Structures are given as structure tokens and as C-alpha cells.
């Protein structure tokens, strides 16, 4: 392919993919033909106040990321370094979560969380999000621990560390890239997910950002406030875009890991 033609074609294609995102940012700061931050002011006062939805989302993200890291680190350590009864079965069950379509299991989870006293709660939602993260996270952490030479933790044990001491002092620093990737994907899932909070959260004051902002479109009683909605879109998209641009290495590692292969 000749170079100028190739680059011209690629430039047009890139524009098609990037344009909607740029347009969204542009339209969120326009009022008529002038620059205005009005839509962001309206967004701040929307519903219970965008601060409430942001707080809910941040709580959900913190629970999900911390919980996923904790559970997947221990499980990855167990699968990489120990033999225990039911090891093979548990690993297959964790991977089987990938086989089960997300929306179909949310209806029984709605009932189950009610029984556990966790209906309409961010903690219950976080536990469900952690479960959905497990296949990717455990697979990733198991591989991360396996790529650390065994001599490293064996030396620590000879020096008197228990298995927990070896994990915390010697192994964890060696698996930081894996932890970043797992935490990154847990963040993206809990920050962005719409279906699980839609079904498992029912009070307005506990809505996460995606549910609250989508409600501008669904429960508008006639008129959608488009610029404010686009301000909401930009507000939700910016952290994800920033993370993508800053942490690309970890991002791509997640894709390449093969955990997506189910």
C-alpha cells in the first residue's frame, strides 16, 4: 500500500473513532453558541446531588478493588504454591463463572442478597462485583505468583518467616504488576457497570453514577436535558480515559494474559 494513501485513510478512520468522544466533551461546555459550564453546575445539583452518586460509586469501587485484590492474592498464592483438597475443583468453579451470563444470575442474587440483609446495599453489590472479577483476578494472580522463583520464598522461610510472612515481605513486592492489572480491571468494572447496580440497588440515595446519569435519559418526564447528560458522560468517562492513557502497559497486559480466553 502506498504511504500517503495509507496515512490519509488511517487518519479518516481514526477521526471516526475519536470524534464522538471529542464531541461529547465539546457539547458539554456549550450553551447555544457560547462556552458555558452551566451543564456542570446543573450536574452538580442533579437529583440527590452528583456528590452523593460520586460518593456511592467511590465506596463501591473501594470495596470492590480492595476485596478483589485481597481474595485474589490469597487464592492466587494458594493455587501457585500449595496443594490442598479440592484445589482442581475450586479452580474450575472459579473459571466457570465466565461461562454463566451475567444478567441471568442477577435475579437470584437479588433474592439472595435480600435473605442476607444486603438488599439495596453497596456492600452487597460489591460482593457480587468481586465474584464476577474472580476468574480474571485469580487467574492473573496465580500466574504472577508462579512466575516468581520458588527459591525466593523458600529462602524467606528458612530465615524464619511463616507462609504469610513470606507472602507479605517477599512475594507481594514481586507481583506488583499483577496487582495493578487486577486492581485496574476491578476499578473499571465497578466504576462503569450499569446492570448490576440497576437491579441490586433500589434507593435513589444509593445509586451509583451510571444509574443516576442514565436516569436523566430514562426518567425524564418528556424533556431530556442533553447538555447536562453529556456533562455526566464526560464526568464518568474522564477517569477511564486518563487511566487508559497512563496505565496502558497494564491495560494491554490484561488483554494479553489469556484470562479472556475463558
Amino acid at each position, binding site marked *: 500500500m502506498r504511504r500517503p494513501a495509507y496515512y490519509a485513510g*488511517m487518519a479518516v*478512520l481514526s477521526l*471516526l*473513532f*475519536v470524534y*464522538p*468522544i471529542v464531541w461529547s466533551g465539546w*457539547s458539554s461546555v456549550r450553551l447555544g453558541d457560547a462556552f458555558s459550564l452551566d451543564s456542570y453546575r446543573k450536574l452538580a445539583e442533579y437529583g440527590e446531588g452528583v456528590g452523593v452518586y460520586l460518593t456511592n460509586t467511590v465506596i463501591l469501587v473501594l470495596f470492590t478493588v480492595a476485596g478483589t485484590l485481597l481474595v485474589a492474592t*490469597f487464592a492466587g498464592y*494458594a493455587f501457585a*504454591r500449595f*496443594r*490442598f*483438597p479440592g484445589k482442581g475443583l*475450586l479452580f474450575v*468453579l*472459579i473459571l*466457570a463463572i465466565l*461461562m*454463566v*451470563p451475567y*444478567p*441471568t*444470575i442477577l*435475579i*437470584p*442474587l437479588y*433474592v*439472595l442478597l435480600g435473605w442476607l440483609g444486603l438488599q439495596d446495599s453497596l456492600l452487597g453489590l460489591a*460482593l457480587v462485583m*468481586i*465474584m464476577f472479577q*474472580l476468574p480474571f483476578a485469580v487467574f492473573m494472580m496465580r*500466574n504472577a505468583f508462579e512466575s516468581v522463583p520458588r527459591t525466593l520464598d523458600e529462602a524467606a*522461610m528458612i530465615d524464619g518467616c511463616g*507462609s504469610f510472612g513470606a507472602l507479605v515481605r517477599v512475594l507481594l513486592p514481586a507481583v506488583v504488576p499483577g496487582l495493578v492489572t487486577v486492581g485496574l480491571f476491578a476499578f473499571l468494572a465497578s*466504576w*462503569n*457497570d*450499569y*446492570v448490576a447496580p440497576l*437491579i441490586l440497588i433500589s434507593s435513589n440515595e444509593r445509586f451509583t453514577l*451510571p444509574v443516576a446519569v*442514565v436516569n436523566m435519559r*430514562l426518567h425524564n418526564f418528556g424533556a*431530556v436535558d*442533553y447538555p447536562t447528560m*453529556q456533562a455526566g*458522560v464526560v464526568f*464518568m*468517562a474522564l477517569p*477511564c*480515559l486518563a487511566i487508559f*492513557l497512563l496505565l*496502558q502497559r497494564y491495560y*494491554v497486559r490484561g488483554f*494479553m494474559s*489469556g484470562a*479472556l*480466553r475463558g
Partner: protein
Amino acid sequence: MSNSLGVRARPDRVTGAAPPAPPRRRSSGLTGLAYAAPAAVIVALFFLLPLGLVVWMSLNKWPLLAPPTFNAPGNYTQIADNALVLDAVVFTLKYTAVVTVLLFSVAFGLALLVQHRRPGIGFFRGAFFLPAAVGWATATLLFFGLLSDQIGPLNDLLEGIGLIDAPVSWTAGDPAVAFGSTVTLVIWRWAGFNMLILLTGLQAIPNEIYEAARVDGASAFQAFRRITLPLMRPTIALVLCLMITGSLLGFEQFYILTRGGPGSSTTSVVMVIVREAFVRFNLGSAAAMSVLVLAALVLLNALQLAFIRRRNS
């Protein structure tokens, strides 16, 4: 984005099969079990239990607020009489076929365009992937604004170049137009994601094979048919599997962008399930539909897995 998406030639570790662990002196079975316990509890409580519960719910009349009563197989027989369900199944299958063909073509085309290292390639890869960095619901809402007559640029643009005479309602007018909008949204948001997976497959093919083919006088098209396609088969199977499953379970692109309309022309199976449970408050019936979807998808996944395995061996 200049050095972005430096996809490595080979993933550093391939799926599954870890080297067998040598027996360990220090580790008693209990220690490992203790570390695996939190994961085991989560799997049991939030995965296995709901799987059993959904089957049990499907055998009961299960209103949202009143106690359940056993009514098997009432929920299943009712599904057959529900015209909305049958329409949704037909629509979802049609949608899946259209999206899989178009999305795969676009994603594979993009992957072929960006497979070779050359100046600026990282920028193009990043640009194509950028929509996938935004959340799915966020992207859907973004598209809803983009296609709106009020702030969206599309109608003005098309009127300006004379393609349309009057503003078009892209999400609520003609069913075929609304359908096209959802497909466009899905391609925009997911093409780069699938491109990236296909790109790793392409880059895992050693260059020497292409060089040998060139020496033997093979044309670019022959090399593509005889080398690229056969060696890409596992990656292609994976991508198709993700596309088909994702489309069969499509929800946001309909619930948010078109609200299942106009009429119920873009109402998907998952939308019907959610509506059955939380608008009509009939959890038992929704559970029965979930069980059927679950069974269909597990079967589909198993078939695809068997297909991939056989091709690999």
C-alpha cells in the same frame, strides 16, 4: 499516545496448563485451604447458591413481595404463550447475526491495517481502541446525545450535504433506523477491543513463514488465505465466541439507546427478563427465562470450546 499499545509478539504465558508443582515439604493441605477459603466462600455463596436458586425460583410463582408458591412447570409453559418473548428471541438472533458479521469484519480489517510497526502506528491503535476505554453504559448514553436532534451534529451534517431533507429520529422513528443505530454504536465501542485481541493473534505468527511464502512466489492474498487465516483460527474462534455471547446478552444498547423501541422492535431477551422481574414483578417467570438462556449459552460455549479444541489438536 505516541508509544501506545506496544503489543508484545507473544504473550508471556499461555492459557491454563501450569507446570506441575513439585511436592512441598512445608505446606500442609490446611494452609493452602485457608488461603483459598475467601475465594471458595464467595464462589459458594454468590455463584453456586444463586445457580441453584434460579432453578428453584423457576419452579415457583415468585412475586416480588409475597411468599413464593410451587407452580412447576407453569413458568415454563407460560413462556411459550408469551408473544413478546418469541419476538425478542427472533430479534436477538437477528441482531446477533448482523453484529457478529459486521463487527468481526471491521475489527479484523482494523487489525490487519495496524499489524505492522511503522511511524505513528501506536497512535492509530490507540485511536481505534479509545471508545473501548469508556464504560459501556457511558458510551451508550454518549451515542444517545450524538444521535439526538437537539444537540447531535448528525442531522445538520446530513442536511448540509443534501443526503436527507428533514431531521431523522435515529433512535425512535423507523425500526430499521433504530436497529442500525444500535449496530453502529456496538461497532464503534467494540471494534477496537476485538482488534486488540486479533492483533495479538496476528503478531504471534512468525515473520519467517511469510518470507518463505514470498520466496516461493505466493501473492499477498494467497499468504492471507493459506497462512494468516489457518494460524489465526483459535484467536478468531475466541473473538467470535465473545461477540456472539455478548450480542445474545445485549441489554444496554437497547434499554438505554432505543428503550426497546420503537414499539418493541428492538427489545432483546435480557430486556424481557429484566422487565418481567422488575416491572411486572414476576421473579419466577424471569427465573425460568434465565434458566433457558443459561442452558442455551452454556451449550453454545461448550460447543465452541469443543470446536476450538478439535481445531487445535
